[in-house]
């Protein structure tokens, strides 16, 4: 339960490995993304392809991981699954916000507006609202088994939104590009620097997601332990108050 203090535990080693790996990979992605050639249609704006789709990808992964962890919790009722659920939801909210921000920035020069009531954008904004709602729900609950179950069900209910977001591009007549990765023949992808940068971005953001989740899980464990300490302390204090002042040893 408390894999925190010892600095050489395997958990710590995995965490620092993930940390360095994500640092290097994200650095490489940014480097590669920034030197991408200009394109005919979009000038240099296509360079955003190295961060925007990967951030969106990470937000999907986050919701998926949260759902799996939620099922894990509902089946086993172990606290560790619950920590992964909330960690994944919160990190997912961060990636969703970044997706929206970069999407908006990309949309300004290409579509001419900061915000387009476009299917992908709108549903991704909905996803952000749902994730923030789940985090807010979690915050308003006292630690314990009830909170864990409620978080799990909230995470499961969020997954339902994913297919809607993903297929929304097909349902509405959307300005948003349909996934470029799956449409052309895969052989040409390797030559295309954009695809390479985007794929590297997918890997980098996935590793980064894993690292952030590990950190968040650790904090959750620490907070739970700390809450118990606080509770004990509060109980001791109240007991002391309950005694008449004369009896309290000075």
């Amino acid at each position: 339960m408390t894999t925190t203090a010892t600095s050489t535990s395997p958990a710590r080693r995995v965490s620092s490995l993930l940390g360095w790996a994500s640092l290097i990979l994200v650095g490489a992605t940014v480097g590669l993304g920034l030197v991408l050639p200009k394109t005919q249609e979009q000038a240099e704006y296509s360079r955003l392809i190295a961060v925007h789709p990967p951030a969106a990808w990470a937000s999907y992964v986050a919701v998926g991981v949260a759902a799996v962890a939620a099922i894990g919790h509902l089946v086993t009722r172990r606290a560790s699954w619950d920590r992964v659920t909330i960690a994944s939801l919160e990190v997912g909210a961060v990636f969703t916000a970044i997706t929206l921000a970069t999407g908006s920035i990309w949309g300004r020069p290409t579509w001419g507006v900061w915000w387009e009531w476009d299917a992908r954008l709108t549903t991704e904004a909905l996803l952000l609202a749902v994730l923030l709602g789940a985090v807010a729900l979690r915050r308003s609950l006292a630690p314990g088994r009830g909170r864990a179950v409620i978080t799990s069900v909230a995470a499961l209910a969020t997954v339902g939104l994913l297919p809607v977001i993903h297929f929304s591009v097909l349902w509405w007549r959307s300005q948003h590009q349909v996934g470029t990765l799956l449409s052309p023949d895969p052989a040409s992808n390797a030559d295309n620097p954009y695809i390479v940068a985007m794929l590297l971005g997918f890997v980098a953001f996935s590793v980064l997601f894993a690292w952030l989740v590990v950190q968040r899980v650790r904090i959750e464990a620490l907070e739970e332990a700390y809450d118990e300490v606080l509770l004990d302390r509060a109980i001791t204090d109240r007991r002391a108050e309950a005694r008449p002042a004369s009896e309290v040893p000075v």
Partner: protein
Amino acid sequence: MWADAGLVAGKDLRIELRSRVALHQVLPFSFVVLVLFAFALDPDRDVLQRAAPGLFWVAVLLTSLLATQRSFAIEAADGNRDGLRMSGLDPAGLFLGKAGAVAAQLLLLEALLLFGVSVLYGIALRSFGLLALTCLLATLGLAAAGTVYGAMSFGLRVRETLLPLLVLPVLAPVLLAATRSFEAALGGAPRETFGWLGLLAAFAALYAVVGLFGFGPLLEES
């Protein structure tokens, strides 16, 4: 499970029959929403008529929020929660009963509201079968998702403020699909409704599954 569902739904509907909260408070509220839309968009018939399906479903969405809150408010009083927990009723049946009662009330409200829309906004209603089917599927989704989230925020002191934040974004796909389906049905393109009806059915099924399996743990832990 079905017997328990019937019991719970019957109880909720009986409470509604005696208290008339949905009829005397929620229904007028949704009419106020319709009128407010008319104020906001100017009584310009064109805009109102074009936007009518969307406005109708936004009104229904807000109404469903109230109905869900009401449905759990009656369980929150007088320690009913513990009563429910110890009643030995099947949680899945409990979920179906609560959602069913909400759905029944919503359907009635929708019928009245649809009448209101056609009068206030001057909409000629047609293809009633498709409209009714859309209402039915959308209502099932609204009731199922609303009941899941209602149960989630059940034990909270902040549930009045938190529930809308939780539920409204989740219900947005219903708003979208039901609006598009209505537009197609009213616009005389019934074929286009099928995809949207499918989405509504999928949404309802998804949250029904979450509710059927999640209600037990939610009720026993919260």
